[in-house]
């Protein structure tokens, strides 16, 4: 009887329009935030941080970004990997060129650089749609990666062709480089996730979000009723790339520490994030969290069960994982095109009516 909507009436429009209209959800949300900020940092072991928690947080940001583009604005992109690379390489260039620059500012600037590149490659979306656009984003994917591996300026002509992250501190605490503590890295990622999820929520609840969705649902009608497609699409590309760029910056800056464009940000990254968005739920912020969590946890689970417990060879487990993910994508699209988020919503509706289902 805790989870109730009845008696929870809204008397003003803003309160009817808030993020968690049901009181119980609101409490749960604050409890979760409190837990993430105040409890998790002290429980976190290096294993958990590196294999699950930190990649999860970083991919949540990437998934949020791609979801804005595909799920909200309906523009398919297969160039996520390359845009993450832009964020990573911008981070590298900025930290090495301006060593005094605070690292959080660097991450944000890296996001902005990516946004600019995203807009550039988003321009074709004004003329082309659907999978035609997918091909245009593939151009971004392959061209940018080629650029980053071929042009010495981008990796400061390092002999290995890799970029590596110098050490940086925030308030005296080391957050980048191999010596940074799991707690510092975790807190950095958490701050970005919370901040960016909040931005995403704000942008999708108001006019900007509605113009995106109108383009997604019926672009011609949207233009006739007054949506400027140029602005709608380019803002979607910009915001999406900003998110993806920050994710790439974090992935390189605080997680990998060193990277080579082709390996770390290849086309498979694009697909990974795309799958997170599809499985989690197109057009849903919660879905981006669920999808990222699912695809980060799945391989770890498979490894623990199949490789560690049953003694399978690692590559076999990996092939099985590829197969499972593929099957899941098809399954989700057939059963519930809005992914885990929609399943969650349905479950909640059931719960809300329980024990009187009518």
């Amino acid at each position, binding site marked *: 009887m805790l989870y109730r909507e009845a008696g929870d009436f809204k008397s003003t429009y803003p309160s009817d329009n808030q993020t968690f209209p049901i009181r119980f959800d609101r409490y749960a949300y604050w409890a979760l935030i409190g837990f993430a900020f105040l409890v998790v940092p002290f429980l976190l072991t290096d294993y958990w941080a590196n294999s699950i928690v930190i990649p999860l947080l970083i991919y949540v940001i990437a998934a949020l970004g791609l979801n804005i583009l595909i799920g909200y604005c*309906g523009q*398919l992109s297969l160039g996520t990997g390359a845009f993450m690379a832009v964020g990573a390489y911008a981070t590298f260039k900025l930290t090495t060129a301006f060593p005094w620059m605070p690292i959080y500012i660097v991450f944000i600037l890296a996001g902005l650089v990516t946004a600019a590149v995203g807009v550039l490659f988003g321009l*074709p979306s004004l*003329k*082309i749609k*659907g*999978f*035609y656009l*997918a*091909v*245009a984003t*593939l*151009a971004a*994917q*392959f*061209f940018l*990666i*080629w650029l980053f591996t*071929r*042009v010495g300026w981008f990796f400061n002509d390092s002999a290995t062709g890799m970029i590596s992250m110098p050490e940086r501190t925030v308030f005296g605490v080391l957050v980048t480089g191999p010596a940074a503590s799991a707690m510092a890295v975790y807190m950095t990622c958490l701050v970005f996730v919370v901040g960016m999820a909040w931005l995403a929520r704000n942008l999708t609840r108001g006019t900007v979000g509605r113009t995106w969705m109108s383009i997604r649902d019926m672009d*011609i*009608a949207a233009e*006739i009723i007054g949506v400027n497609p140029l602005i709608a699409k380019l803002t979607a590309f910009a915001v999406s790339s900003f998110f993806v760029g920050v994710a790439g910056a974090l992935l390189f800056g605080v997680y990998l520490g060193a990277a080579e464009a082709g390996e770390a940000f290849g*086309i498979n990254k694009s*697909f990974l994030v*795309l*799958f997170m968005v*599809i499985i989690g739920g197109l057009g849903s912020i919660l879905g981006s969290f669920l999808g990222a969590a699912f695809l980060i946890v799945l391989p770890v689970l498979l490894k623990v069960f199949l490789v560690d417990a*049953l*003694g*399978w*060879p690692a*590559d*076999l487990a990996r*092939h*099985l*994982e*590829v*197969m*499972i*993910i*593929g*099957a*899941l*994508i*098809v399954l989700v*699209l*057939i059963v519930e*095109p809005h992914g885990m988020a929609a399943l969650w919503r349905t479950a909640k509706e059931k719960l809300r009516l329980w024990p009187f289902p009518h």
Partner: protein
Amino acid sequence: MSDTVLFAFEAAINGLTVGIMYSLVALGFVLIFKASGIFNFAQGVMALFAALTLVGLQEGAIPFAHLINATFGTSIHHFGFNIPTLIAIPLTIAVMVGFAWLVERIVLKHLVNQEPIILFMATIGLAYFLEGLGDIMWGAEVKRLDVGLPQGGNIWFEENTQWLGFGNENFYGFYIDTLNLYALVIAAILVTALVIFSQYTKQGRALRAVADDHQAALSVGISLRFIWVLTWSIAGIVALVAGIMWGSKSGVQFSLSLIALKALPVLILGGFTSIPGAIVGGLLIGVGEKLFDFFMQPIIGGATENWFAYMLALAFLLFRPQGLFGEKIIERV
């Protein structure tokens, strides 16, 4: 003739033979797109899977041997006999038809009225599934595929093109893999067969009817589901041909499925609904990327093949969104 021109020619010929591969994969795309409006991302992986199956059958490998060994601690790999190529190929075709049937049953049937973009993403899922399945079924190591096609350079071609050097001392004639000449011939036969099939058989006419107008075709009693199984089967056979070509040349390996991606720009050039378009587009891109790389290498560095096709397609899209041979799309409300 000067060295540069001759080398450029050689690059172009090289490109032509890669282009045939692109064309073949693109051909599979077009077939499925015409009949069902589905943009089948899995076409390249289908080629990989078909080639893997063919090799597996030829060698008498036990399917899922790795999986069985890992679960039961056994150590089995082969049945102990080889299947002759002439039997293995029909068997592989049967597998591809079975796959087509399963795809229709399990996937397409449930996604009939979805938007194209959803269907496209579903085929990406399918591609991943099939890739994982192929690796688990037959093992992931690079395999040699030999169906008896001759290997190595073609002496005859080389000798008979030497005069093109017009007295250039350094020129011994163009080098070309014999295999590629075969590929050219086989591709031509395949396209001819397809044309004959679609013009002169009952199923072929049904296929064209569906491609022209879904509703009308349905109303005269053509079974859409049958047509889908049919097109996916044909696409499977085309994939097998592509798989054999590529596999004989560079071994059966994952890179094969990456060709699927190159087929996308090919389709943009050729148009999604045009069979000649797929062929011409494939050749254009194959030649284009080799020539571009040849001339640009000294200036901007090599490996431009990675992106040239996509950039070309992108530039092209901006001016002619419907492709070279495609029909213009008119939007209405």
